């Protein structure tokens, strides 16, 4: 599913612009606003995050969300990814942005 996420990184060598997810493709970025669209596997998205994305659709990389992404959902998503990849750590902390 396509999700608008916070862009991380500086774009310098060794710190590429990227989104904080283990698996994604189809990235479109706006470095000025710090946002990016990415195509994320549905299995990597927890149901409550999917519901939030569906409730607040985004059409560009500029317009802010009407409500900020709740920290509780951010924590839950990080835990979901940690469980799915089971790597012993919450390595990824994506934020719908």
């Amino acid at each position, binding site marked *: 599913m396509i999700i608008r996420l916070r862009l991380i990184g500086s774009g310098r*060598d*060794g710190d*590429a612009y990227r989104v904080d997810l283990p*698996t994604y*493709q189809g*990235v479109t970025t706006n470095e000025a606003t710090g946002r990016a669209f990415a195509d994320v596997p549905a299995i990597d998205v927890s149901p409550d995050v999917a519901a939030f994305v569906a409730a607040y659709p985004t059409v560009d990389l500029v317009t802010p969300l009407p409500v900020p992404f709740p920290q509780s959902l951010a924590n839950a998503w990080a835990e979901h990814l940690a469980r799915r990849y*089971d790597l012993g750590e919450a390595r990824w902390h994506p934020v719908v942005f």
Partner: protein
Amino acid sequence: MKVSSFAVARPAYYDRNATRGRARYSNPFTAPHSQTARWTVTIAAGTKAFVETAVASIVSEVNPTTVGFQRVQFGTDSTSAFSDVLIISQYTSLTVKPIISANCPTQFTLYAGQTLAAYTQDSSVGGTAEYAASTQYTVFDA
């Protein structure tokens, strides 16, 4: 002498819940830009993946005014394209070339927790190019 039994032999990887995965990026008329990850693939616990193909290419479209390198590369790190470069397609020229590409010469295995990522970068001033980075892989039970 019988040394193994078909009945108890471990199935081949393609018979262990194998599924095909793909990641690709292709975007024409891309202006100069900082290093950007276009996709990543991370292998979940309990699985491995054979990366069967990986291709990187650049089609130069409009000459830059100040030349810099245009680059597509694959790495096995999610933050840096320079720690483990697998494939690199790069050129520095003020002359438009129709296509420059590089293929991964062999299959390789990704283990749980490893990431394969594709990056593009263009340090020129002006000009545009089409960048492409694609891979196909098979994920299976470890």
